[in-house]
């Protein structure tokens, strides 16, 4: 299974929603503490297992997250450590990029997510405790959602309702928002420690998963949010990212500071259904392809990007 070695520590990986063989990687120098960043666009070579870089963009500060536009096939959006949100056109050479840079967040931008239903807007989550709503063609943010009491680590759109998104924050709450409402519509105190990531169930629009520093993943139904549907234990350290499968209703992928990537089925008694230990440092980025069922990618602080099919060994060549 292909491995890509980046010069910097990996932070996030995302498959393109247009091209099956394309993915973007966000990396940061010096573990993202202090230094430059780089965005890699990788192509899976059709001939044999292999991953090659097709284009890369350098940034002055760490790139914490990257996401592909759902409306323009060659456009990706990057969340930068200096608080800026930059838009890149992969069809243009690096000297002509970025095509936009929005400097509004007061602190590091930690995540960016594009609206998969309306396809015209995206949200960014930042350590300045706010979430901002943007459109690519507007010079400034459309709205700022300021309610969290601490860093917001991720904001994710609902896969069915184009106006609803969820945000996970270091203030230990998960908030559901509707862009038509002035404030958050639900506040779920999901964990006792910081919540690092959240994702919606693609097949049940009322279900979402959160993962936290407390090493657990919890699955929630917003209709009965006082208690979780499931609590998934098994990671040895903080769980960094959680992702619902685009193809299987109950399948969740997660990556953790225990260097592993795990697969879970939260409807089953023994929820852990797969475990991959291919990383040699913190595993911090994970994605499951929307176009190819079973295709997964992960990246970590060991500067490696793995792409593999579920069930295969990521390190097999």
């Amino acid at each position, binding site marked *: 299974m292909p491995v890509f070695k980046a010069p910097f520590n990996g932070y996030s990986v995302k498959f393109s929603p247009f091209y099956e063989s394309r993915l973007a990687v966000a990396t940061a120098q010096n573990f993202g503490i*202090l230094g430059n960043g780089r965005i890699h666009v990788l192509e899976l070579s059709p001939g044999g297992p292999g991953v090659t870089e097709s284009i890369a963009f350098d940034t*002055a500060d760490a790139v914490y997250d990257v996401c592909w536009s759902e409306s323009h096939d060659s456009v990706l959006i990057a969340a930068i450590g200096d608080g800026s949100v930059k838009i890149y056109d992969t069809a243009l050479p690096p000297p002509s990029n970025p095509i936009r840079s929005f400097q509004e967040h007061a602190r590091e931008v930690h995540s960016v997510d594009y609206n998969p239903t309306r396809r015209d807007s995206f949200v960014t989550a930042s350590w300045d405790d706010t979430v901002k709503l943007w459109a690519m063609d507007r010079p400034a943010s459309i709205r700022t959602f300021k309610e969290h009491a601490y*860093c917001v680590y991720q904001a994710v759109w609902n896969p069915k309702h184009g106006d609803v998104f969820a945000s996970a924050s270091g203030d*230990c709450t998960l908030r559901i928002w509707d862009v038509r409402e002035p404030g958050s*519509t*639900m506040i779920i105190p999901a964990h006792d420690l*910081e919540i690092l990531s959240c994702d919606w169930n693609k097949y049940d629009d009322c279900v979402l998963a959160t993962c936290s520093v407390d090493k657990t993943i919890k699955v929630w139904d917003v209709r009965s949010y006082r208690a979780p549907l499931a609590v998934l234990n098994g990671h040895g350290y903080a769980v960094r990212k959680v992702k619902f499968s685009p193809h299987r209703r109950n399948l969740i992928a997660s990556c953790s500071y225990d260097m592993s990537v795990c697969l879970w089925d939260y409807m089953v008694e023994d929820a852990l259904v797969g475990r991959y230990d291919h990383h040699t440092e913190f595993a911090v980025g994970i994605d499951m392809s929307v176009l190819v069922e079973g295709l997964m990618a992960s990246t970590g602080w060991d500067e490696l990007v793995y792409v593999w099919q579920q069930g*295969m060994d990521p390190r097999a060549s």
Partner: protein
Amino acid sequence: MATHPQTHENPSISEATNEVQQGSETAKLESVFKNSEPIREDQIQNAIKFLSHPRVRGSPVIHRRSFLERKGLTKEEIDEAFRRVPDPSPSEQTAVTSQDGQQAVQGQIQAVQHAPAPVVMIPPPSLRSRFRWYHAVLAVGVLAASGAGTAVFVKRSLIPRLKSWVRKIMLEEESDPLEKADAKPSLAEEAVAAAKAASAAASDVARVSQEMMKTKSEERKNFEDLMQLLGVQVQEMKSLSNNIRYLERNSNNLPKVYSANQEVYSGLVKTPAERRPYANGSNIDYDSRSARSTSPPAPPADSSQPPHPKSYMDIMSMIQRGEKPSNIREINDMPPNPNQQLPNPRIAPKAKPWDYGQPPQDESSNGPWWQQKNPRSADFGYETTTARSIGIQNETSTTEPAAIQKQRSWVPPQPPPVVMPEAAEAIRRPKPQAKIDQEVVAAASDDQSGVSDELQKVTKFSESGGDGSGRLEITEIQEETEHQHIGQEGN
């Protein structure tokens, strides 16, 4: 959202149909994303008790809200609790904003009482600026007071001195003619008079000097007081800024270990308060560890902390020492052309697999390597795959039968197998035809009907998809689709 480029028309149509379909559900479904529970009075009472606590009164509003949110209160409950907690009076507010147990603050408060009201009424947000106000006002007040005091004392001492001098001169003048008249009478008297005068003068001088001393000491006292007050102010500011930092980065529940390390981190990294929440926030466990070690890390004493890469520790320690890692380049990542046009999309957006309402069937394993699946991967250790897929189909078929088929036109479900021939017979009997039609419709729309159980069952089979006995129907559909699938594949 107002204008869509040309290529978006196709997807927008499908989006529109999606939305129309969703429209009916949207109204009731989107309400699930809101709290519909009534306000709980017991929670509000707890919140009021919490908010009335003096310690809580001193904390910023955002922290109080965050605490209540973590306890599970809804927004409405929190707002209600805030409304009910009585507004604190200005003096109480100033008393509380200072550090607990600082007595000097009490004296300060009295001095500040006369400060202009608007200053006191300003809500807590920036304690630091309020402090500057107080500081300035206090300093001015004290200086004015001491100035006035010295002026008064000086006046008090100067005027008597002047008076005494004048008196002395007058006395001398008076005594001179008197003495001239009594030139000789008594040298002794003269001497006595001189002595008296001398003693009077001396006592005057003594008195005046005493008063001078008094003034001086009073002035010194004033200045000392002023210095003390200034020192107290500085202490106040320091402790308040510490408090602010403490409260900023801390939540109420976190253990002491976490809070202790905030101090260590405050000096870290390129600017204070940058990167810190990440380093602290993403894993509470490893904070203390990374702050401590600068030499090659020993195995962590506390096993709950993830071991950090050695180079991570090196970089952290470098930054702690104030050094910048050498591999950082100066990069200009601003847009070279800020008015660069967005590219024309070359491909129309693709529909998502979940837009069809159910997970897709297994794709073929032909094609590039990344599509080829390990036969094991389909199972994955799932023992109940088939049951689950049926379950999934059961659920979705009740909601959107039109969405069951993907990438194919909708195929109407097969007629149910004849399970109860008598019932089938009964249906086809012409006599109660109208009634049966009605009942069929009734059974279709909801579960109640006045017909016999058999009829009910049969119509249930055909209309709804639920229950175990519906499996037959579902599998038939599955077979049907599989046939179609294979048929399409053959093309």
